[in-house]
């Protein structure tokens, strides 16, 4: 199939940037979206143009590197799918696609589709851990964690930290990302002790880093390639209230 791509090109953070149009020809439906872009890049190189810069690494939907907005939807809008896992069979011959980077105040653009996600790191540094030391910890079975609790923690822990939730939110809030870590550690006996300080510090960091507030649009849950539920945002809010008490 043949497609027309309108791709955001921006040389650096200071550059204004604009959409450029390129054809994508002879695309096979078994190719992934990024393999389609690889081919477009090969053509650009052969015609003496600068290839499109985009983040990617594992190409199996787990590292959280890839980050593109396709036709207004982070990761292209297919349910529970990162852009590297999106396959061309989801598209039709003649389609016109608009490909843009994550857009949020907290994510300055480095180049083309590559953004700076340091702000997400800062939120984690504020408290996304248990303060255990290497060595000298208890046996893994010393504290029992019944399956439903372990499953709940795992549901939250599946976050890949890509930032699609931020990119999809009208307020550019990082609430889903923050709440996933807060919830995971709040329900586990190993994380409970620090729960109060953690929720406070991570929420503060989120605000300081330039992410917006959550006003319950729930676009984040739609966009999340791991299907992280907004129930964790409710959990964060409850944990936050508890921490004030």
């Amino acid at each position, binding site marked *: 199939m043949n497609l027309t791509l309108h791709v955001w090109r921006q040389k650096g953070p200071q550059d204004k940037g604009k959409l450029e149009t390129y054809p994508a020809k002879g695309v096979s439906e078994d190719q992934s979206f990024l393999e389609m872009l690889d081919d477009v890049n090969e053509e650009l190189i052969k015609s003496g143009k600068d290839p499109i810069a985009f983040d990617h690494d594992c190409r199996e939907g787990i590292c959280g590197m890839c980050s593109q907005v396709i036709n207004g939807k982070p990761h292209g809008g297919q349910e529970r799918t990162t852009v590297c896992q999106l396959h061309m069979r989801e598209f039709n011959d003649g389609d016109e696609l608009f490909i843009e980077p994550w857009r949020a105040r907290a994510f300055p653009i480095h180049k083309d589709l590559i953004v700076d996600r340091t702000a997400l790191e800062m939120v984690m540094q504020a408290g996304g851990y248990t303060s255990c030391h*290497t060595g000298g910890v208890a046996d893994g079975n010393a504290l029992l*964690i019944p399956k439903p609790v372990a499953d709940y923690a795992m549901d939250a822990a599946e976050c890949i930290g890509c930032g699609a939730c931020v990119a999809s939110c009208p307020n550019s809030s990082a609430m889903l990302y923050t709440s996933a870590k807060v919830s995971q550690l709040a329900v586990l006996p190993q994380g409970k002790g620090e729960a109060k300080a953690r929720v406070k510090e991570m929420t503060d960091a989120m605000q300081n880093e330039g992410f917006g507030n959550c006003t319950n649009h729930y676009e984040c849950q739609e966009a999340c390639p791991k299907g992280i539920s907004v129930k964790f945002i409710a959990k964060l809010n409850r944990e936050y209230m508890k921490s004030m008490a």
Partner: protein
Amino acid sequence: MILDGKTPTGPIEKTWDKHRFDMKLVNPANKRKFKILMVGTGLAGGAGAASLGELGYNVEAFCYQDSARRAHSIAAQGGINAAKNYPNDGDSIYRLFYDTIKGGDFRAREADVWRLAQVSNNIIDQCVAQGVPFARDYAGYLDNRSFGGAQVSRTFYARGQTGQQLLLGAYSALTRQVKAGTVKLHPRTEMVDLVVVDGVAKGITVRNLITGQLESHWGDAVVLATGGYVNVFYLSTNAMGCSVTAAWKAAKKGAFFANPCYTQIHPTCIPQHGDKQSKLTLMSESLRNDGRCWVPKKKADCDKAPADIPEEDRDYYLERKYPSFGNLAPRDIASRAAKEQCDDERGVGPGKRGVYLDYQTSIDRVGEDTIRERYGNLFEMYEKITAEDAYKRPMRIYPAPHYSMGGLWVDYNCMSNVPGLFVLGEANFSVHGANRLGASALMQGLADGYFVIPNTIANYLAGITPGTVKEDHAEFKKSIEEVDASVNKMLNINGKKTVSELHRELGSVMWEDVGMARSDASLKNALKRIPEIRDEFWNNCNVTGEAGELNQQLENAGRLADFLEFAEVFAKDALHREESCGGHFRTEHQTDDGEAMRDDENFAYVGAWEFKGVGKEPELHKEPLKFENVKLAVRSYK
């Protein structure tokens, strides 16, 4: 040169404890004065940097991704081994040790493997303390599953995302140290040279991937935890950015490269769909717990829908060939068996390079819901890539390059032959011999990072004065000039082929000639082709853009340039090793029924190569392997 692995002597079960007592310590007040450079933040590097920071060392950590959390360890699916024996099925440290030595086809050092088995239990405890949500039963106890090459259930897991959860645990520990100020992170930074002063590792040269600037970093010790090199095959299960670059730069500065020909081809990957593909996707080995491998008995049936092939016309070839391990035969054996069936023209799917992995028997036994619970995310991933529903129709799988057992040579302390240069995780050669068992790479990465390096590095640092060499030393300037010259050379080739076209060419030579089955003729062909592709790279590649900017073509070109030098040593190693062992299968050395034939008399050694310059013969150094606690035996899984 005969290499000395410096393994402690005495009863094996005491070696690590005794060694820890014998090693020198660094006084807590002095730790801060030592700067340690940790290159890589995967399981090995992340765990190591966090633990060293916590001890009070001054740590700087580097990775090429934009966050430490994105190292390729994140992609590990199936699980991590430990000798906890929670299921009471007869496991022990000795059994884990024995299985690993045997699984590696008797080509690893006994003491290193013993230590790995010994600390495996601490790893699970450590991860639980960090909040890693391992699978548990309703009462709350940790759950286990089985993996290939073992007859006990010793694998701990977190759904199909064990690597992710373990890495996020290590990342959280690292993050805590970053906040505490003991570790400084340098993401989007690639190591492009090792700086050696008077024969001792004293720092690195890096390229800032955002600005393109080259920078110097001094350190009292340099630790490489930079992962594996199977992207030399181009198509593999590794991430796109995985490379041999850091290890190869060290090799060019004198570090020996051990057993490069030991690479693992994983049996359960999604078959290739076409020639435009950029990578192959693994389907976790844990799937073989409940899935049965088969191909049609008759060639004529290969194009039929699998449901139309009756039970009696199916060849469950692993169960037939290896009745006691069946579908859980180790990886090298399962991969070769799949290749044999396809070579026999009984493969299925596009190009007939595929075998079925069938869940029907298990679905009938335990129900679809249980299967979904165990492997839901893998089935989902399979469907995204192939548009097929594996609950309804058997998966198609085929072997793919996956893991490198070879790596930089290290002694028992994880130190290379270059003093001050340590190597951890997949980047070193230490514990897996010629074949790695499932769920033991995660174990090794975390063992090296949490429990080995914090002890052994002290022994080295206690013997040196901190901060004697800084960035103003002439060697740093020289290194930057050399890297700069090489970058400019690449940018000025102005040829016709793209970096990825040439990488594909290298990959296809490596896969055809140095892949699952190697022969004298194929290896000699590879040794002719590799220098030709390398020449073409330096004369006819088109590396676009500039040095002083974010330039992904330049990054890929630099990695390919290193693969093109490394590949030659890899093929030479395979050619010199006139035996079949583990992942290294020489067609000349097999039994009548196609099983590998080891030659313990002549090849029970580690082959460590010293690089002597491009186009020059590398020199082979040997470390003889002694087996005092296991008996060398033909490895049988029948």
